């Protein structure tokens, strides 16, 4: 696809959204049998699966911490998740994302309750359309709750950016590619604490403040959807014969 002349026409984006609008969002909790907790999230064309194992025995043993659990995170893209087939296995990008995703989730987990153990998070990107790290974090946080891991809060994440000099919420691949700025953010919504923040591109001070406000607003919507998904899975459904 070639760069369109304008990414925003009459205040509408290429996919018809307003600048402050999220893509369609679907969250399901508890979708895998083997994992202790799991979640599936669709955000626009992103399709992301997250699974949590643990707390479980830490292997290798010498990675055990005597006073706390260790959180481990692996972000991985399916070879068919992108336009040009991605070679399987970790690359520099996925190693970095695994790290920042882990650091985005770790502040909410009561790791100190499970000395010497490991809690493993696996994020699988099945179909990618910009914002996979934030969608992955959103999914992982639901999977952690689904696994019954004690948490201070959920973590909700979304990207904001600048496209055609407009601050927009939740960039698509086209907007990410041809826009000027991309800023993924993860939030502990209850206390409004930021647990992941990256940015590349260009913002003025004023734009940065507006982008942050937009991101907080987006995370709030995602937070509600996360809680809805968990409620849906766990609400009382008495099955009468």
């Amino acid at each position, binding site marked *: 696809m070639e760069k369109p002349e304008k990414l925003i026409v009459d205040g509408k984006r290429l996919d018809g959204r307003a600048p402050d609008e999220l893509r369609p969002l679907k969250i399901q909790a508890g979708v895998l049998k083997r994992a202790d907790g799991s979640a599936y999230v669709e955000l626009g*064309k992103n399709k992301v699966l997250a*699974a949590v194992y643990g707390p*479980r025995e830490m*292997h290798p043993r010498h990675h055990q911490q005597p006073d706390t659990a260790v959180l481990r995170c*692996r972000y991985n893209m399916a070879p*068919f998740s992108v336009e040009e087939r991605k070679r399987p296995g970790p690359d520099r990008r996925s190693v970095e994302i695994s790290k920042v995703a882990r650091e985005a989730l770790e502040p909410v987990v009561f790791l100190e309750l499970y000395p010497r153990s490991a809690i493993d998070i696996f994020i699988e990107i*099945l179909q990618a359309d910009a914002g996979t790290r934030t969608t992955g974090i959103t999914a992982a946080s639901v999977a952690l709750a689904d696994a019954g891991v004690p948490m201070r809060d959920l973590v909700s994440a979304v990207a904001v950016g600048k496209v055609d000099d407009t601050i927009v919420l939740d960039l698509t691949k086209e907007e990410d590619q041809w826009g000027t700025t991309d800023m993924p953010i993860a939030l502990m919504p209850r206390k409004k604490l930021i647990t992941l923040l990256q940015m590349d591109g260009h913002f003025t001070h004023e734009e940065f403040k507006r982008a942050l406000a937009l991101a907080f607003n987006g995370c709030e919507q995602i937070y509600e959807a996360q809680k809805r998904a968990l409620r849906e899975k766990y609400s009382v459904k008495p099955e009468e014969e």
Partner: protein
Amino acid sequence: MYEIVSSVKRDYIVDLARQGKRVDGRALDQCRDVSVETGLIKSAQGSALVKLGSTQVLAGVKLERVEPFPDTPPSGVLMVNAELLPLASPTFEPGPPDENAIELARVVDRGIRESGAIDIDKLGITPGEEVWAVFIDIHVLDHDGNLIDASALAAIAALWSIKTPKVEGWTLPEFPIVKKPVAITMAKIDEKLMVDPCLSEENVMDARATVTTVEDGSICAIQKGGVGCFTREDLEAAYELARARAEDLRKHIG
């Protein structure tokens, strides 16, 4: 990592086998419920999500222009890769494909390649210079046994879902898929053959045999696994079972 199976579970399954019964109440020759959903992954030219009981496998097919192999300059290239994602089982670990993942990919590959399911000669672009490569990536999402049959079914269903691929430079009217190979795996437990073993059966089985057949009932691939043995009679029976069950599963393709 492997699972230590408790003696109680092992005895229970073996005891049931002796009575011709199975742990989940199935008949010996019965598959678990199957569902196949194609076209989920828009970034792939073909895709299929297969659920076989609680086992879930997602296969995606990508078409790319590559240089041909020197020994088959005019023909297309087929590549099958399988990932036993650590998300799918507590016993799978991150890292490059281990022997189980490689065996899985190669068994799926043989079924497709040897059956001639893809008319690979039609995938040439400029003989000796450029051909189409068919990348089949198998993503195991939830492991509750019998990954081979689920993966083989996902792969062939994904290939049949391609129709006319949406990829730059494609000139053929349709993707040249012509056959429907189907793999059926049987576990041998206490001299009994059980079709489509679930994980707890796999954990205690003596051996397994996978027989891949095409529409006319002929065989295109076989794989024996596990440390136990099969008799000639076992294999006769396995073939009959495979042919019958393959017919059922084939209805889910294309």
